[in-house]
């Protein structure tokens, strides 16, 4: 057989193998997590696990409710902070900033996006934790170690900024300038144009960006783990410690070897994490693709 043809054949087949392997990987991961969770699901029903409030692995109690609540609160607040700030920043960058400033901000965003989570966690620990402990908590008359839900939320929101901002800036810039001119020539101010034309035209992209940001925040393990306090109880206030699903896995993994159901419970948590993040990401991508097809922006 011709040497070139042989090389071509092997090359193509190798590519095929790699592709098949990777394409099915997510499915394999899903199956294995599911399989490992079966163990605990045989002893307790899923609703028991999700709704009971006591997480005490040594006693065989695996109530995830407080941790789920913790996750919702931390993720929710981080988005509450991140979305307005990101949207306003994105509007500024694409509509108001002079070219020179825009060129400076771009690299800033790239670097922010590239900082590893563990460094975010470290900086939150060095800056936010003392801030909460010594300034914010006393102001409210609460005693806090600084390792709390608020710290984790703020940290997450900074991590989410670059994601939402870059997607929004991309979307705003894709809107034809003539549309903006059309609004301005009727006598609208720039801000009115942003409110009524740009936001409306980019709405699907904005929603998609928020969904992707949510997915990121929900799945963030290390940075949250370093500052949230790791207490598996419903936090009594934002300044008290809590726990999230992702952070739980990191905290608990070392200890789980001794307790038999523990590992399975953690696999279940990983499975929940996987499925939820998957849903939000897929939703985000689908919304984005559909928006591009419908509007072209």
């Amino acid at each position, binding site marked *: 057989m011709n040497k070139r043809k042989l090389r071509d054949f092997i090359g193509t087949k190798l590519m095929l193998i790699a592709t098949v392997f990777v394409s099915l990987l997510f499915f394999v991961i899903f199956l294995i997590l599911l399989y490992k969770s079966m163990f605990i699901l045989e002893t307790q029903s899923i609703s028991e696990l999700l709704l009971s409030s006591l997480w005490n692995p040594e006693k065989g109690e695996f109530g995830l409710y407080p941790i789920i609540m913790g996750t919702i609160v931390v993720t929710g607040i981080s988005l509450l902070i991140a979305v307005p700030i990101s949207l306003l920043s994105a509007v500024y960058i694409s509509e108001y900033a*002079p*070219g020179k400033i825009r060129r400076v901000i771009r690299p800033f965003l790239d670097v922010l996006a590239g900082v590893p989570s563990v460094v975010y966690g470290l900086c939150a620990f060095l800056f936010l934790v003392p801030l909460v402990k010594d300034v914010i908590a006393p102001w409210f008359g609460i005693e806090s170690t600084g390792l709390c839900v608020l710290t984790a939320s703020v940290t997450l929101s900074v991590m989410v900024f670059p994601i939402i901002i870059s997607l929004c800036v991309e979307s705003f810039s894709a809107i*034809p*300038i*003539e*549309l*903006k*001119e*059309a*609004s*301005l*020539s*009727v*006598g*609208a*101010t720039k801000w*009115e144009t942003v409110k*009524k*034309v740009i936001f*409306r*035209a980019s709405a699907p992209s904005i929603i998609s960006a928020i969904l992707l940001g949510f997915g990121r925040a929900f799945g963030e393990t290390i940075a949250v783990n370093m500052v949230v306090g790791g207490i598996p109880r419903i936090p009594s206030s934002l300044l008290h410690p809590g726990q999230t699903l992702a952070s739980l896995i990191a905290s608990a993994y070392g200890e789980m070897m001794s307790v038999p159901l523990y590992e399975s419970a953690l696999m279940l948590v990983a499975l929940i994490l996987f499925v939820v993040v998957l849903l939000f990401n897929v939703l985000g991508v689908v919304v984005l693709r559909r928006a591009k097809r419908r*509007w072209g922006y």
Partner: protein
Amino acid sequence: MIKKLDIQIETKNLNVYYDKHYVLKGVNIEIPAKQLTAVIGPSGCGKTTLLKSFNRLLDLRDNIKISGKILVDGENIFDSKVDVPDMRKKMGLLSQKPYPLPMSIYNNVAYGLRIHGKKNAKELDSAVKHYLQEAGLWNEVKDRLHDPASRLSVGQQQRLCLARAIAVEPEVVLCDEPTSALDPIAAQQIEKLLLKLRKDYTVVLVTHTLRQAKRLADHVVFLYFGKVVEQGPADEVFNNPKDPKTKAYIKGEIS
């Protein structure tokens, strides 16, 4: 000579520098009020830039340097005292390709009205109807006012954009080759509308078809690569051009 009182827009030594070259150089123009002025000249020689400088839409672009004065009703629009959105309200814009806003037909027309404070539903309804009628679109859309504007045909969209522009009662209507994206029938409809408009508005029409200019213009400005070569009443410029370049362009020797 046009009497001073009848000039709506006047530029004095207008220079626009963009992308490392002069798009407009030393432009002195007088646009008479309540007439249709055609701006003619070869493609790419600054006609659109001239139009967009009148309502300061050029402010949107980076790296643009403008010098000189543009007087609208005697007032320099570059003066810092001037309220730009208000000034823009006086000038309606019709672009080459129609760009309906991402909303319903009704809301497109009502857009400008709402911005300037009209909230009463009944007033809005009658205003929208009135301007759609003026634009000759009412009968075709009266049953689907709340459909997205994007569903209209290109010709209809252009008439919608016209309705939207005149809804805020401008004094000037700036048209940038408004029929170039349209089929002949739609183009004809727009031309009819433009002729109708000049009773109440000052129309500035950029066109690169001489025939269109001859059909519609009362007054003509010939722009050649950023410089004003000749301007004056339409029959003077078309039948008795003074500058050799004008003669050549009109004959079709240069384009």
